[in-house]
């Protein structure tokens, strides 16, 4: 609506300027200002002016040739070229797409390979670590066992020693007690043997 109004006002302005120009032209060119423009006769132009017909046909054909030469020909060629270019680029894009697809597949395969490899490596490393660990555990256990055994043995030895000392001192005590009771010294060796036997028995029982 606004556009229409703008066009209408433009046309009106244009026409007004033309009319003003013409009026000025008429006033300037005519002798008297009373009748600036002569009355038109209203006669229709003569028909059958064969020169005009021929010229018009020739001129129109020239115009047609010009429009075809400079308008439709180049534009048609351009449109064809453009569609060819678009087709070519579409084809190229298709090719690139398949190529990319192939590359992607390859890469995926590579990736899978490398993943498997890395998994293998990790598995191998894990296994090695496990082995080392087991070894170390075994060694530590061995060590611990040996240490324990040694300690046991030492403890046993110490116990034996302590037992022997206890027995000895018990024998001595028993002998001295018996001496005191008997008031005489008996054959120490006999007694010692007797008491030792007894203590051994008792000790075996006690221990």
């Amino acid at each position, binding site marked *: 609506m606004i556009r229409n109004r703008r066009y*209408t006002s433009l*046309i*009106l302005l244009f*026409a*007004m300027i*033309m*009319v*003003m*120009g*013409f*009026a000025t*032209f*008429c006033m300037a*060119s*005519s002798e008297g200002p009373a009748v*600036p*423009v*002569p*009355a*038109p*006769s*209203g*006669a*229709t*132009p*003569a*028909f*059958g*002016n*064969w*020169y*005009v*017909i*021929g*010229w*018009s*046909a020739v*001129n*129109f054909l*020239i*115009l*047609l040739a*010009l*429009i*075809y030469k*400079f*308008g*439709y020909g*180049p*534009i048609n*060629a*351009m*449109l064809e*070229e*453009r569609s060819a*270019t678009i087709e070519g680029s579409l084809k190229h894009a298709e090719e690139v797409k398949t190529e990319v697809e192939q590359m992607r597949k390859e890469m995926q395969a590579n990736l899978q390979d490398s993943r498997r490899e890395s998994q293998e490596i990790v598995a191998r490393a894990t296994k090695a670590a496990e082995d080392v660990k087991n070894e170390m555990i075994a060694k530590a256990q061995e060590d611990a066992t040996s240490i324990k055994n040694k300690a046991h043995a030492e403890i046993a030895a110490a116990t034996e020693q302590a037992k022997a000392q206890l027995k000895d001192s018990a024998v001595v005590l028993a002998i001295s007690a018996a001496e005191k009771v008997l008031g005489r010294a008996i054959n120490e060796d006999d007694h010692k043997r007797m008491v030792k036997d007894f203590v051994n028995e008792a000790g075996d029982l006690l221990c």
Partner: protein
Amino acid sequence: MLFGMWDGVYFHLGPIPVDHLVVTEWAIIALVGIISFMATRKMQLVPTGLQNGFEAIILFTYDFFTQLMDEEHVAKKWAPLLTSFFLFILISNYSGLIPGAAHVQGFQPPTSNWNVTMTLAIITFFSVHIAGFSEHGGHYLHHFVSPSPLMLPLNLVEEVAHPLSLTVRLFGNIFGEEMVLAFLLFLAPFIVPTAIMGLSMLLGAIQAVVFTLLSASYIGAAAGKGH
């Protein structure tokens, strides 16, 4: 130097007289040729500026005539001719709106003359039959006896009446408009003709469109599937 409708000869080209209408036609040819030459001088794949508008116009004519003729290859074949009709008639109609064109010698629009419009109509007449024969070959002749052979005279009269009505319509409109403008300029030269000039711009465009449309529909009817 002020005349009524003036039939004048500017000069003789050998034995052939060159009318003022012919000179105006040359001016129209120069205008259209220069514009189209400028528009398509440096063709680019990605259009810019004038080429863009020109391309849009040409694609529009293809679309328009395809819609009118129902067959795309016929429309593409005849679009240059129809566009030439349109531009020629439009510019020559508007050349009558130059101040005083109806009075000053050499400024009458070519379409306000019988001879010029009849030439255009004869070109349409020949194009119609060329289109018919090139589309259907000899089978096109069945078109003249289409419902029954009894209709042959009527069909022939119709074929003659088409260019005649084209001639008279265009000539009558533009001549009448020029006459109205001339009378108004004679009666009140200053402000009054403005309204008629604005109306004449519209009418000139409509007459150009109507001539093109009718030519297109005649060609489409001759080249269409119906025959």
